[in-house]
Each structure stands twice: as C-alpha cells, then as structure tokens.
C-alpha cells in the first residue's frame, strides 16, 4: 500500500522533475557562458537542475513517509467547461465581438456548477454580459468591439 499512500508526493515530485528537465534541456541549447559573462542559458539551467533535485527529493520523502493523503475527487465536467469557456473567449473575442463571445463564455461557465440547469444559466449569462458591457465598455471606457467582423460589426 506504500505506493498508493505516497501517490500525491510522487506525482508532485514528477511534475517538478518534469518541469526541471524541460527547463534544463531547453536552456542547454542556449548560450551558457561563464559566471563572469553569463549567457541567457545560465540562470535557467541552474534553476532547472535545482527543480530536478527538489522534485526527486519530494518523491523520495513521500515514498519514505507515505502519508500523502487522498487526492480526492476531480470535477471533470467543471474543468472541461471552465477551460473551454476561457479558451473560447480568447479565440473569438476579436472576431465575434465582446457580446456574443462573453455570453457563450459565461454560459459555459455557468453550466459547470453542480446541478446546473440550462435556463438559470442562460439568465445568469445574459445578465452578466449586460453588466460587463456596462462596467467595462461604458464605465471604464475599454475599447472593445461589441460585435466583431464575423457578425458584420
């Protein structure tokens, strides 16, 4: 059961080690230089190495202590919907314009909640879109197109 109990720390160690390796290997392709004349690769290479050491230590410590605890549930639906909502906004805000992009974004986000129902989510999305336009476009005078080129705006 040791492996199971240490899963949290092993995973955390793996994440840090992975990032460390990625940073270290990529920086190795840049000019390293010497301590006197450091190249762009020097500092990130050191950090990458440090991250690998820390990641491995976390994994080892977790394996020895084995009291990492349960990871718990992951709200997959919410994860997909929220990320989808954010990416949709970035992808469409320039071409669709603020109003339609934001409406869909907030609608997707609204559906991410537990026991979310469609009609309340639509109402929330419509009100929040109106509120945001009032605050950001009229209140704070941000120059955002309400309707974009795809809609002939």
């Amino acid at each position, binding site marked *: 059961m040791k492996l199971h109990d240490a899963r*949290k*720390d092993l*995973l*955390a160690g793996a*994440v*840090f080690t992975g*990032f*460390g390796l990625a*940073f270290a290997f*990529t*920086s190795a392709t840049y*000019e390293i230089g*010497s*301590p*006197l*004349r*450091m*190249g*762009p*690769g020097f*500092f*990130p290479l050191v*950090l990458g190495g*440090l*991250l690998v050491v*820390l990641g491995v*230590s*976390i994994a080892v*410590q977790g394996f020895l202590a084995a009291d*990492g605890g349960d*990871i*718990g549930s992951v709200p997959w639906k*919410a*994860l997909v919907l*929220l*990320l989808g*909502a*954010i*990416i949709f*906004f*970035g*992808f469409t*805000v*320039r071409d669709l314009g603020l109003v339609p992009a*934001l409406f869909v*974004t*907030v609608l997707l*986000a609204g559906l*991410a*909640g537990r026991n*979310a129902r469609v009609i*309340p989510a639509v109402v*929330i*999305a419509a009100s*929040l879109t109106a509120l*945001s336009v009032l605050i*950001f476009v009229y209140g*704070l005078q*941000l120059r*955002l197109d309400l309707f974009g080129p795809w809609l002939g705006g």
Partner: protein
Amino acid sequence: MGILDNLALGFETAFTPVNLLFCLIGVALGTAVGVLPGIGPTATMALLLPITFGFEPATSLIMLAGIYYGAQYGGSTTAILINLPGESSAAVTAIDGHQMAKQGRAGTALATAALGSFFAGTVATVFVALLATPLADLALNFGPAEFFSLIVLGLIASITLASGSTLKALAMIVLGLALGTVGQDLVSGSPRFTFGQRELDGGLDFVSLAVGLFGVAEILRNLEGDLTRSVMVKKVKNLWLTMADFRRVRMPVLRGTALGSALGVLPGAGHVLASFMSYSVEKKASKTPQEFGKGAIEGVAGPESANNAAAQTAFIPLLTLGLPGNAVMALLAGALLIQGIVPGPDVINNEPELFWGLIVSFWIGNLFLVMLNLPLIGLWVKMLTIPYRVLFPAIIAFAAIGTFSINRNPFDVYAIAFFAVLGYVLIKLGCEPAPLLLGFVLGPLLETYLRRTLTISQGDATVFLTRPLSATLLALAVVAFLIAVLPSVRRKREAVFEDED
C-alpha cells in the same frame, strides 16, 4: 524633511477626490470579497489589476491595497455570523465570535472586531510611517550582491511561516523563478522558452498567472464540493459595546496590536500567525480561560486587532526594501512594475507622493471601513445570500475581459487556462500557490542582481560571502531554512495551521 512634512504630502495626495473615491471603492470591494467565502483578496486584486493600468500609480496602489486590508474586516463578519472564515486570518475569530452570535451578541462581536481593527490599523499605520524612512535608508547602501541575498532571504523566509511541506514550497518558488525567465533575456535580448511564439517575447503575463493560479484554480477547488451556506443571523442589533465590554477588550486590543504589528513585518503568513498567537496569549492572560471557546469577547478583540495590524505592517518590506512577503504584496509589486516603478528603497525618495499618499490612505481606508462595517452591516449580510453559481461565472467573465483588455492579445487569455490547470494540479498535490507567484515576480530581479554582482566581481562568487551585509542576509536565510525544516518547529507550525482548515 521631518515625518510631519511627509505626512502632509501624503494627506495632499490621498485627499484628492479621485484617490478618496478609489480608496472607498477598494475597501468596499475588499469587505465584499472578505465577506464572501470562495473568493479572496488575492484573486480580486489579480482580477482588477488590468483595470488599474490606466490609473495614476498612487490611485492604483491605494485601491489595490484597500482591497487587501478591507478583506480583513469583511472576513471577520462571515466568521462571526456563519462560522466560516471568509479570509484565512479570520479563522480564529470564528471560535468565540460565532459563539457570541449564537448567544445573541453578534452586534457586540462585530463592533468589537471593527473597532479593534480600526485602532490596530491606525497604530500600525503610524508604525509603518516611522519605520519606513530608516529602513529605506539602510537599503540605499545595498549593492547588487546585497539585493540578491535579500531576495534569497525573503523567498526562504516566506516559506518558514507558511503551512505545508517545506520541500514543496521550495520547489514552487524555483518553478516560479523558472517561469519568470520565459521571454527575452534582459541582457542579450535573445528569446528563451518561447517556442518561436512572438507573443511570448515579453514573458508570461503576470496577470494571467495570478488570475489562473488564484482565481480560476480556486473555483475548480470550490466546485469539488457543495458550497451552500446559511446565514444564522438575519438582523444584527446592538452594534455597540457596553462600558463593561469596553473595559474587557482594552488590554486584548493593545496586546493584539503590538503582536500583529511585529509579526506582520515577517514574510509569509504573518497575519494568520499573529491572530493565532494573539488568541493563545489572551487565553493565557485571562482570569477566566474557561470562557474561551464559549463566547469570550477577548477572543475576538485580540486576534482581530492582531490580524489588522499585521495586514498594515506587511507593507513595510515591500515599500522599503522592494521585497514582497506574500502573494498580495507580490501582486502590488507587479502593479508597481507595470506602472514602470521598480519596488525598492528608491520609491520613498523618487515617488514621495505615491509612498506617503499610500500610507495616509491606509488610515483613511480604515476609517471608511468602520463606517462601512458598522452602520451598513446589513448590506454585507445580504451579500452572503448571493449564490456561488452566480459568483463564479462572474469571476470568469471579469478574468477573461480584464486580461484580454491589457494587450488585446488572445494568448494572455489562453495563459489563464494554462495556469489554472497548473495551479489546480499543484494545489491538489499539496502545494501552496503563493510561493510560485513570489518566485515569478522576483525571478527577473534575482537574475539581474546575480549577473550584475558577478560582472562587478569578475566572476568571483565568494563576493556574496565576503561582503558583510550580504553574508549576514544569507546567514539569516540559512537560519530561516533550518527553522523551516527543524522537526520541533514543524510540529508546532502544523498544530497552529491545523485549526485553520
């Protein structure tokens, strides 16, 4: 040249209509997010950061700072009324404050919290004003080697007082430092880790990182469970203290203020620690310790004063040394950097209006907060009825619009999603996100000072140990690290933070 002239300049800056208005908006927003569980001051400040870009630096800082200390007031309201700390430092207040509410003394508890906080905030602001100039003068003698060592000390010290695994916190700092290197190298101008994407040349966007890490990742955390709450007290009466109450809270408020002012200066979770320590001090000092946990007014007065004093003195390291001690201060450092001001000892001399205006605004903000939190308490209680299913889509909307509006760059919006996933995974695996943000903000400075020092010293790294000030700072960093990993300290620390969860 004296402190009075400085304060006069501060009053001049803080009392302009615009700054007064944004101070009020800041503390009102702070109270709101402090009251509402599920969104904290860090996320709010990150969300509002883009909006402040068009402001004067002083106005921007005054509002953002107001959100932070305003949240300390709001957090106690939720703690007292529904036994759920809206903000981590209010966890202690919930112990006796909620018992008082159950006994029908919610009004007294709220008044104690607000007045204690106001007194503490006022005293701590004076403390900041007095300590700022000498500390900044000291730091003016710093060369790049000292600044490097100071940042190392700050980063290590910030994890000494944090909860959770020291190794993980260290790894989060290093990951933050590494993410901070993305973009053009400051010396040679050659791009690093950009994968040929021109959008990344300027580095990962600070706002995207903060919003993803603290805003969206937190929503995902909250959606794991059911976030329903019930307000026990619908109407709050008797918002004042009797003479007898007043005599009982006098000493706890004074002790809490002193404790909070001192601990707040330390990097890390100084204000959380301050309120916990104040609670145990009051329990020890009390003639009737058996009342604690059953609605002792001292158990509200002490910790509330302590956490508000600490929220004020936490600004000292950032304002005088340029060293942010926690996530909130890192956000303020980011706000300054975006305005083109490098946080550090020069700010007090080069931007006196900003510096003293901000300090005076603390006091004005605390005054606003007493007015907002006592007569208008009903409004905040009503806010508790806003369901989370309305709140979190609003956070997403604000995050998306705000981040996009900075550079009109869709890439920054995608970055939110990236950091949200990264943050959520890491939080799930037991890593606190704050050290990552600290590392990210301080990374470019750390690298610059390191390279500058070594260029001056002809590549001789021992210079960090042969310059006395730098060596002292590094020695302190080693001490802080040892304290963090010593088993006896670890156990005590965990005991303190356990109550928090």
